[in-house]
C-alpha cells in the first residue's frame, strides 16, 4: 500500500508516494524527485557522496530513513544550495578552483563544507581537513578541494 509522504525540499513542499516508510531519503531525492546532486556511493554512511542538509546540518541521506524526517524539516540538496545564476559561495569557490575531477564525490564535499563554514569562521587548514575527514575522494582531488574551501572561507 503506497503511503504519501510530504517533504520540504529546496524550498518547495512536495508529496511523494512510497511503499516503505524506512526507505532512505537518498532514494526519495534521486528516484522520486529526480535530483542529481545527492549521489549513491556506498549506502553505508561511509563516503559522504549522498550528503544533503537537513535543517542546515550535513547528513548522509543514504542512512536517513524517511520515517526519521519530521514534517517541516528543511532539506537542501546541491541543486538547492545555489543556481547557475547565483551559486552558493562554496560552489563559486569550487568552480573557481576547478575542484572536481570526475566530480562524483563533489556533492558531498560542497554540502559538508557549506554546513561546516556556516558554523565555523576562519577555520585553519587542519580544521577543514578534519571537517572533511569522512568524505572520500578517489580521484585525488583533495588539494583542489582544500583550496576551494579555503577560498570560500576567506570570501
Amino acid at each position, binding site marked *: 500500500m503506497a503511503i504519501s509522504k510530504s517533504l520540504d525540499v529546496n524550498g518547495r513542499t512536495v508529496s511523494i508516494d512510497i*511503499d516503505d516508510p524506512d526507505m532512505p531519503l537518498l532514494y526519495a531525492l534521486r528516484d522520486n524527485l529526480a535530483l542529481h546532486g545527492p549521489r549513491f556511493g556506498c549506502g*553505508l554512511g561511509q563516503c559522504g557522496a549522498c550528503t544533503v542538509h537537513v535543517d542546515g546540518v550535513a547528513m548522509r541521506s543514504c542512512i536517513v530513513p524517511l520515517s526519521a524526517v519530521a514534517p517541516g524539516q528543511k532539506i537542501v540538496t546541491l541543486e538547492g544550495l545555489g543556481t547557475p545564476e547565483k551559486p552558493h559561495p562554496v560552489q563559486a569557490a569550487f568552480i573557481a578552483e576547478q575542484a*572536481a575531477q570526475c566530480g562524483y564525490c*563533489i556533492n558531498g564535499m560542497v554540502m559538508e563544507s557549506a554546513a561546516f563554514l556556516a558554523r565555523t569562521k576562519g577555520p585553519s587548514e587542519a580544521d577543514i581537513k578534519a571537517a572533511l575527514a569522512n568524505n572520500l575522494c578517489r580521484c585525488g582531488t*583533495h588539494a583542489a578541494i582544500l583550496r576551494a574551501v579555503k577560498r570560500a572561507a576567506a570570501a
Partner: protein
Amino acid sequence: MTMQDTIPRAALSRRALLKGTGALVVGFHLAGPLGQALAQAGSAAAKPVTLDQVDTFLSIDGRGLVTIYSGKVDLGTGVQSALAQMIADELDVPDARVTVIQGDTALTPDQGPTYGSLSLQNGGVQIRQAAATARDALLTEAAKRLGVAKADLAVVDGAIGPRAGGPTVTYAELIGGRRFDLKLDPAAPTKKPADYKLVGRAMARRDVPDKILGRFTYMQDFRVPGMLHGRVVHPPALGARLEAVDEGSIKGIPGIVQVVRQGNFLGVVASNEWAAIRGARDLKTTWSKSETLPDQARLWEHVRATKVVKDDVTSNVGDAAAAMRGEGRKLAASYDFAIHTHGSIGPSCAIAEFKDGKLTSWSASQATHNLRKQLAQMLAMPQEAVHCLYVEGSGCYGRNGHEDAAADAALLARAVGRPVRVQWSRADEHGWDPKGPPTLIDLRANLDSSGGVAAWESEFFIPQGAAGNVALVAADLAGLPNATAIAPGGIHQNSAIPYKFPNVRTVCHRLETTPFKPSWIRTPGRMQNTYANECFLDELAAAAGIDPLEYRLKYLDPADTRGIEVLDRLAKLARWEKRPSPQKAGNGAVLKGRGITYCKYELVRTYVGAVAEVEVERATGVIRVTRFYVVHDCGQIINPDGVKAQIEGNVFQTVSRTLKEELTFDRGMVTSLDWGSYPILTFPEIPELVMELIDRPAEKPWGAGEPTAAVVPSAISNAVFDATGVRLRSVPYTPAKVKAALQSA
C-alpha cells in the same frame, strides 16, 4: 567558458542519448542538407567510423559549430575539454564552438580503450591530424574562392581571409553541414608550436560547473522511459552454485516485477530502485559451499608456487648470471605489492534496452567498442545489433565493474522485455570488480669494490596475459560465452630499468593463474614494478654509501638529457641535501626522512621524478607523508591545469595504495567489501604537494594520467628507510607492519 555554455551541451547530450540513436546527435549539429538527410535516414550508418576518414573524427555544421567524434572517453579526467582545446586551436575556432561526442559505437571510431595514458598521446593526436587535414583542404578551397594564394591566408575564429586584410570566407560557408569526403592525411601540416593560442594554456573544464551545481547527468543519474530497476544477487563465494531460490520470500515487497535466474546468475527486477534493493537483500537463496582461494596469510607462498607458463625476458644486457657469480658484494631482496581494487566512489551502473531484436547499452565503459563485442558474444547476437553508448560515470581508473553492470543489465532486460537499470552496490563493486593482481618481485645485485653495480637481476611473478577483454561476471555466472583468457593489462612494463649497468637481466615469470580475476588498475604493473626497482636501487646506493640521487644520475644514459633534467630540477625543487641514506637516526618519538625516485614511463615516454618527505611514529608505526615533490615532463602540455590535476590524483591515490590498501579474503570470497574494511586515504592524511611541470611545446604530447603513480610507493619506502634505517618491502605499509619492522630492526 561561461556556465551558460555548458548547459545546452549537457542538454543536448542528454537528449541525444535518450533517443539512443546517433542520427539525432548529428541532426542537432548539422543544420544543413546533410544534417537533414542524416536525420531522415534515421540511421547512423551515414557517418563513417573508419580511422582513415576525416569525416570519422570531425564535422562542421552550417553555423560553424565543430563536432569531434572521439573513441577515447572522459573518465572524469577532463580529457574531453583538453581534446576540444587541442582541436579548437588546430582549426582556429573558439573553444566554445567545439562539441565532443564520445564512446558511441555507432558514431565514434574505435580508437582503442581509454587506458594507458594514451587519450591525448594517441587518440587526440589522431583527431588533430584529421583537423589538420580538414584545415588544409578548407584553405585550398578558400584560396580558390578568394583568388588569394594559400600561403597568404590566415584563419581567425573559423573565417579564412588574406593576412593583409580583405574579404573572408567562413568554414560554415565552405563546408557547413557537408561531408569532407577526404582521406586523413598523415602528412597534413599541423600548427607550429609558436602559433598555438589555446594549447598550453590553463583552461577551465567544461563539465566542472554542472558537476558542482548538481546539474550533471552521470551514468548513475541517467534514465530511459519505461525503465525498471535491477539488482544482482552475487554468490557468497567465488564458484558457488545456486542450489535454490525461494521467490516467495520477497512476495511481500511491493514493486517486485520478476526474479531472474539463469544458471548461477540471479537478479531481482522491480518497478522502483528501493524495491529492487530490498528484494535483492531479502531474497532467500541456497548456494553450494565453494573454497577456491588460497589462505591469505600464505598468499606469497601461493604466488611463488603458481605454475609459470612462460618467461618474458624484458631486458638482457651483458651476462648477468656470470657477473652475479663474480667477486663483489651480493645483495638480494624480495618485494611484494598487495591485491588492490579500483575503488571508484560511485559503484558501476548501466542500462540496457532490447527493441526489435537490437540491444542498446548505456554504460560508463572505458571501451564501448570492445564491450559491444563482448555483449554480442554473450548474447549470441550479431555485433551490428548491439549499440553501446558511453555516459560518464564516477571516475574509473582502469577496467572496473562498468562492463559487468552492462552485462547484468542486458541479461535482466532480455528476461523482462523492458529497459533495466542495474546499479551495483558498494559490496558488489568491492567484491566483484576485477582486481590489481598480487605482484611479487625478487631482485639481486652484485656491487663492485667501489659500490658500482656490476650485475642486476630481477624476477617478476605476475599473471600471464595482456590488455584485452576481461571476462564478464554475468556471462560466467550464467554459463554463457565469455572471454576466456585473463587480461591484467601490460603489467610487464617497467620491469626493465632505465639505468645503464654492464650486466642486466630482467625476467617476468608469467603465472598461469592469479587468485582473483585481474584487470588493469591505474598504472598497472608500472606502479608495482617501478616500486621494487627504485627501492632496490636505493638499497644498492645505501650499501655503497652514496647519495641516492647521485647514484641514479651516475647510471642514467647521458644522452637522455630530459631524464637528467628532471632529476636536476627535482634536486632544486626539493632542496635535496646530498648525503647517503639512512640519516643518523635520532632517538625521538618521530623520525623524519626523505626518499627519491625516478621513472621513465615504459622506458619510452613521460619522465617523472619524485621526492617524499615522511615522518614515522616510532611507537605506533604510523607513517605520515608530509610533503611530496614531483617534476614531470610529458612533452607538449595541452592544458597545464589538466596535467596538474592528474599528478595530484596519482599522488593521492597512490599514497593511499601504499599506506593503506589491501584486499582481504577468506577461502571463499573477498571480505573487504566496504570502506571500513578497505580504507583509503582521508583528508587529514594527504601530503602537501609541490610540483614542477616541464613543458616542451615542440615535442609530442605524452600521457599524464598514470606515470606519477609509478614513483609514489618507492619514494615513500626510500624515505622511511632514510628516517629509520628500516627497509619496507611489502605494500601496504600499515602501522602494524611498520611497527613490527621497527621492532625487529
